[in-house]
């Protein structure tokens, strides 16, 4: 497809379970970002990839959160031992090279932890 694709669109999980959220960026975009958007707030930065490597993971809230991008394209955000406070919309964005270039966003995954 032409845009950033995120799956699933919605995910409901039980407290304590493990979840994986997938992001398929625009082909050729080397920069990939994950953000978390809580209700009534703007998106908050989680992690930035340049190619295959996590160039900045300073926004990850704790060690239950982890993300990978093994081939420099698709990225997976992994959350272990989910908590109710993890409920939010997780947005992925990609851009051609990073700084200053337009970031294109996916439609997000709404995660609900019950």
């Amino acid at each position, binding site marked *: 497809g032409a845009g950033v694709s995120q799956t699933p669109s919605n995910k409901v999980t039980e407290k304590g379970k493990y979840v994986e959220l997938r992001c398929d960026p625009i082909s050729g975009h080397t920069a990939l970002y994950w953000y978390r958007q809580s209700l009534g707030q703007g998106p*908050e930065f989680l992690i930035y990839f340049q190619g295959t490597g996590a160039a900045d993971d300073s926004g990850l809230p704790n060690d239950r959160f982890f993300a990978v991008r093994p081939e420099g394209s698709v990225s997976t955000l992994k959350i272990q031992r989910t908590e109710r406070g993890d409920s939010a919309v997780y*947005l992925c964005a990609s851009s051609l090279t*990073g700084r*200053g270039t337009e970031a294109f966003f996916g439609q997000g995954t709404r995660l609900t932890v019950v």
Partner: protein
Amino acid sequence: AQTVTQSQPEMSVQEAETVTLSCTYDTSENNYYLFWYKQPPSRQMILVIRQEAYKQQNATENRFSVNFQKAAKSFSLKISDSQLGDTAMYFCALGAGSQGNLIFGKGTKLSVKP
């Protein structure tokens, strides 16, 4: 610390009228970028307009224009000839780091009334 402040949680405007959304920011960097994103109920963030801090000329995109006051660290968005399709959340964002990740404000909910 880098911050973005949107002081108007909600705004409304009559169709065909003009509305201005406010945004202030703080950064110690000299070279940075400012963005306005639109987020309709579909959740996908869509870039409305982009401004490079080193450019004095205010950016314009059709009905959308900005008033960029660098010394005051202000970046307001003007929407002319408002249309019903402009109804959405609007987020102001700052890109000041070397990585390209964005700092978002809390958003302004804009309603365009027929």
